[in-house]
Each structure stands twice: as structure tokens, then as C-alpha cells.
């Protein structure tokens, strides 16, 4: 290139293109996002975090918790499963024969092996779930089954290692971070993912874990955040906020460990981390709430 101006032009074109693609377009597309509704419901998602949790996000940022923890769940794929809830007037043995003949149809060729195996192992008790079908196969099969007088429904299940680990029911999507300022996605899992940690542990667990991680997770590499707590002499009555610690981590006699406001806010933020509702972008069927058999 002959002149400085041409170099400038080259750089302008290159950087301008990526600016349009990764700054302008996302601002126009994602930056104007509004709340959405939960799938099959009129609930709004996401709700704004309560005040203490918003302050807790700032504590999270100040101590750079995102240096060790991610708050995003990955999803590798999606499958359907059929949940059979009633056989109607049919007998299990008849039903098995019916299914065997159904699976010989061409559209079920791909899933017939796994479904056959599951039905062969079935002992006739309901409800019975048959897994690993794709949407078309499940939709087809449902129609045949329901036409035969049985009751079954299709359930959509997100699959992936993170989901199997219990870190979430679906992948994280843009709506999950709508209210966060700043968004703390994290990019390395030195510690477990926190996207749904609010559903896994309660307030006391979080506070104790912040003060003495090794008391709850043996050999944990997480540093204790003792500077978020105050060890002080017990006054006339013990403080209601005082932590209940095992002997090895408890303060000396006559002292109690009390969380500071920062610790309480951070714990509130961690409790507010839940993203387990289905959305249009990341659908799944919620768990059946069977209060007859808790």
C-alpha cells in the first residue's frame, strides 16, 4: 500500500465492519430487549432483583467472583420424551404389542431401537416415560397413542452435561441477564456454575460458605471471604444473624461471627440467581408437580 491514507482506509473498513456486526447490530437487536413471558403462562420474566440482591451484584463485581465462577448454563441439544399417564381401556400386554407394530413404521426407524428397549423393560406401571425422540417422531407417536384411547403427552427436555449436573434446566439466554449491571458472565469454571445457585442452597449455606468454604466443601480451593464478616464479642444476647459454624471453624468462646451488610447483600444476590423457567428461546417442559406422591 502506497500511502498512509490507504492503510487508514483498510483499517477503517476492517474495524468498521466488525463494529457494525458486533457493536451496532447487538445494540439494536439485544439492547432494546424487554421482558418476555414464561412459556405457557402469563408470568413476566425476568423479574427485577430485590434491592439487596442488586447491591449484592456490586459486591460480586468488586470481588471479581466472575474470575472463578460462570453464571451461564450450556445446552448441547434437545430431545422429546413421551410420558404415558393412562392406558385407558387397554391392557399393558396389548399396548406393548401395539407399540411394537407402531415402531415398524418408517418414520420411527431412527428411534425404534431405543424405544423398543425401553418398552421391553417396562413393567406396566404408570406413568411411564419413553425418552430420546425428536419432535417429529414424538408428535407422530402421540397421535397414534392418544387415538388408541390412552393418555400421553410430549415433554421437551434440554440435554447437556451442565443440565445433567443439575446446574440448570435449560441454557442461559439473553433475557436472563436483562437487569444485570454489569453482566458478570464469567469465563472459567474454577468453581461451579452459579446460574441457578439460588435453587440449590439456602441463605445459611451461602453465608457459611462465604465465611468458611472448607467447612462445607472439603478441599475447596475457594478462598474464605472472612473480610466480609465480623468476629465480635457476644453481647447480652447472641445476634440472630450469627453464623452457626462447626467446631473447627467456629470463633473462640464468647465470640460470634456476624455477616456485614456486604455479605448479606451478596448472599441475597446469590439466592436470586435462578433461571429455571422455560422461555420461547429455550423451551422445556417443567417437572410434573405430583403432590399425591411427594
Amino acid at each position, binding site marked *: 500500500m502506497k500511502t498512509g491514507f490507504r492503510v487508514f482506509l*483498510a483499517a477503517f473498513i*476492517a*474495524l468498521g465492519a466488525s463494529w457494525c456486526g458486533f457493536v451496532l447490530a447487538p445494540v439494536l437487536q439485544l439492547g432494546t430487549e424487554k421482558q418476555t413471558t414464561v412459556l405457557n403462562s402469563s408470568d413476566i420474566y425476568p423479574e427485577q432483583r430485590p434491592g439487596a440482591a442488586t447491591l449484592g451484584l456490586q459486591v460480586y*463485581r468488586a470481588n471479581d467472583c466472575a474470575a472463578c465462577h460462570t453464571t451461564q448454563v*450450556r445446552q448441547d441439544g434437545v430431545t422429546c420424551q413421551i410420558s404415558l399417564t393412562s392406558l385407558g381401556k387397554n391392557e399393558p400386554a396389548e399396548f406393548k404389542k401395539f407399540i411394537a407394530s407402531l415402531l415398524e413404521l418408517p418414520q420411527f426407524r431412527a428411534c425404534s431401537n431405543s424405544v423398543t428397549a425401553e418398552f421391553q423393560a417396562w413393567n406396566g406401571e404408570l406413568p411411564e416415560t419413553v425418552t430420546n425422540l425428536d419432535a417429529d417422531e414424538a408428535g407422530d407417536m402421540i397421535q397414534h397413542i392418544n387415538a388408541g384411547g390412552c393418555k400421553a403427552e410430549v415433554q421437551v427436555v434440554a440435554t447437556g452435561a451442565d443440565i445433567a449436573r443439575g446446574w440448570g434446566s435449560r441454557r442461559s439466554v439473553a433475557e436472563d441477564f436483562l437487569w*444485570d449491571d454489569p453482566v458478570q458472565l464469567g469465563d*472459567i469454571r474454577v468453581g461451579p456454575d452459579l446460574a441457578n445457585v439460588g435453587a440449590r442452597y439456602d441463605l445459611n449455606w451461602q453465608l457459611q460458605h462465604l465465611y468458611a468454604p472448607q467447612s462445607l466443601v472439603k*478441599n475447596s480451593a475457594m478462598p474464605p471471604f472472612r473480610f466480609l464478616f465480623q468476629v465480635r464479642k457476644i453481647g447480652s444476647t447472641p445476634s440472630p444473624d450469627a453464623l452457626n459454624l462447626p467446631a473447627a471453624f467456629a470463633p473462640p468462646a464468647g465470640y460470634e461471627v456476624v455477616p456485614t451488610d456486604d455479605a448479606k447483600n451478596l448472599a441475597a444476590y446469590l439466592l436470586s440467581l435462578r433461571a429455571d423457567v422455560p422461555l420461547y428461546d429455550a423451551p422445556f417442559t417443567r417437572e410434573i408437580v405430583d403432590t399425591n406422591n411427594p
Partner: protein
Amino acid sequence: MNENEKIDSAVDASCRVPLLALFGGAALWLVVGLALAIVASLTFHKPDMFADCPWLTYGRALAAANDLLLYGFCIPTGLGVMLWIFARLSQAELCLPLVPIAAANIWHLGVLIGTVAILIGDSTGFMWLEFPRGSSVLLFAAFLLIAISAFATFGARRDRELQPAHWFLLAAVFWFPWIYSTANLLLLASHPVRGVTQAVIDWWFSNNMVFVWLALVGIGTAFYFLPKLAGRPLQNRYYALFAFWTFILFGTWCGIPHDAPVPAWLPASSAVASALLILPLFIIEFIGWRTAWGSVKSKWDSGPFCFVGSGVDFFFLSGLMLVAMACPQISRATEFTWFGPAQIQLQFLGFFAMTMFGAVYYILPRTAGFDFPFPKLARVQFWISLFGLALFILPLAIGGVEQGMKLQNSQIPFADISNSMLPYLRVSTTGQLLLLLGGLIFALNVFGLTLKWKMAVLKKLLAAIKAPLETEEVKA
């Protein structure tokens, strides 16, 4: 001295004070940054070491170390080398020499304020942008000042033909203000953009800053120094042009991680761009080898040659790691693991730092007019840094892949995965200690040289004060 050498030494002398200001601060920040990184990694070996000290908790120490490495060491050194290369290629003295001196001081002040802010808990929360607003303004202003001097020096060239080094370095001067101002305005100015858009812009900025900008400056420097040190012309100009165009066109689009919580078109664009990046990576490595080949044996004693040559190789390696991470199948095993930090640190300490060490070891004695206090230590530093890099990067990369594969297997409890990383982290901390030692040697040399220069200036000043006044006899 022939004509050329006279011009060269005049050019070098004009760059003296700005470069000493830039490189001196950079060397200091390098040592502090590497030390803070070690402090951070100590947490893995003894978690409650800093349990009562919020200033040195892992998150803050690591963020400070990373930003010190980028803003404290890499950028000032890169800018200093750029100014000198422009001056040399223009065969003209550095224009407006006071401007870079002021800018260097403003820059280092900004870095200091930013680092203290991170340690007291005021970090902004955005990767590679943790310095707060006040500090960003100082850094931006300082960069613009240096850019003014760089443009002026570039414009003063008599030979209007541009060299490959020119293309890369000019692009870098243009790149930084745009990405830095965009990132700061959209993320830090008053209210950040909504939701996950913040993360997208942060990734765009991080990629363009840590990957593209450092590559532009580093490769520009390498394309200037390798031919000079190897004694052969660059092999060759057309390949370099192709590499330049493909690199800036594709490199700027990488950066969005594969499983990011953003619509699918963003990671897909990054993945495609990363795949296309293979071409400029191979071509740059090819150019480096063709130019240096044949001289490797003869120039092996030359410290700068070793540094710059190995720098280009590390660029190639870290670039390959970047491309691998963007590949959907491989990203499954490398995402959210130590492989990512390994790739970034290889870029910083392997590619950019080594190239800059070579450049500084070549430039400073010529501009200051003195030799380093311990010139032989340059080779020692080279080998220490090389071993340090191997011990630092390799365990993290290998451990990262193992961590990723275990994360994919939901039967393995997370605590086991964490614990299995500890041996790798122990080895990598040893590597960090070696790298700190290398950095200390570098700082020792730079400070020693600065001290020598200051002593010489002081001596001259004292001599001038003490010299008897010239008197004229008054004729009666």
C-alpha cells in the same frame, strides 16, 4: 561514521527521553503485574492466605495483574517501539518529543490509579476494562498524544514508500482509539447498554485489544526487526500484504465464545472468522521463518534475535490455540477451562512480551548512548523466560483440556474436577516464578540503564555549574 549511521544516531538520540519514560514505567508494571499474578495463584496452594485481606483476594489480584500486564507493560512498550520504528523508517528525528514524555507520565498515572482502584474494590467488572472511568480518560488522552507524535514523525518521512511495519503499526494507532472509546462510552460512560449486550461489546473489545492490537504492534515490530537482525530482506512484501489484509479483516471478528448466552449468529460469525484466520497465521509464521532461516545458527548469540524470533513462533502457537477454541467440537473440551487463560497468557508473555524484550534490548542502548549494566543477562533472561513459559502455559493448557473433558461427563463430581487441577496449577505457579525472575532481569537492565543516563545527565549538569565562567579581559 558514514552518513546513514550519523542520521540513525541522531534519530535515536531524539527518542531517548520519551522511550526511557515509556519503557521505565513499563518495566516496573511488568514486575508488579507478574508479582500480583503470583499472589493470585498462591490462593490455590493455600486458600486462606488472604482471607482477611480484601486487597489481595484472588479476584482483585488477578484482575489487577491482567490489566497491569496489558495497560502497564504491553501498551507503553508497544507505543515506545512504534515511535522509534517510525522515526527510524522516516529517517527523521522524533517530532514533538515533549508530547510523548508528557503522555508517558499521564499514561503511567492512569495505570496507577486504575490498579489501586481495582484492589480497593472499584473495578468495573468488565474483562480487560477493569480500570474505572477516570483512569480510562487519562489513558485515552495519553494515547492520543502519542498518536499525534507518531503521525507527525510518520509524515516527516522523505521516502514515501511504505514498509510492512508501517502498515501494521499505523493500523494499530488507528485501532486503539476506536475500540477503547466505544467500549468506554457504551459500557462505562453513564449507563451501560442493556443486558447481555454489555458482554458482547466487552468480548468485541477484548478480542480487538488483546488479540488484534497486540498482534498488529507485535508483528509490525517483528517484520521490522527480523530482517534487520537476520541481515536479509523480508520474505516477502507481497505475502506480508496478504497477511495484513486477511488478518485485519478476519481477526477483528473473533472473540464471541461458542456457548455464549446470545443469539446463535454471534458465535457462528466468530467461529467462521476464526477458521479463516488460519491463513494469515500460517503466512505470518512462514514469513518469519523464511526471513530468519539461515541466520538462526549465526545470530543465535544475539539476544534481540532470539527474542523476536521466538515471539513470532509464540504468536503462531497462541493463534492456533485461539482457532482451536473457536472450533465447535474442540470448544466443548476447552470452554470455561484453564485453556482460555493459557492462550491469552501465551499471547501476552510468549508473543508480545518476548518480541518487546527483543526490541527494547536493541533500541535502548542505541537511544540512550549507554549499554545495559548487565548485557549478558539478556541471553539468560531469554532462556529463563522460555522455560518459565513452558512451565506456565503447558500445564494450564493440558489441564484445561482434561478439565473440559471431565466437565462434559456429568458423572464426575465437580469437587473432583477442581482437585485434579491442583497439580497442574502447582507447576504453572513455578513457571510464573521463573517469568517473574525474567521480568526482574529486564527491569534491572532498564532501570540500570536509566540510572546510568541520569547519572551522566547529572554529571554534565554539575560540570556545567562548576565550570569556571569564561571571562573576557576588559581592555583598559
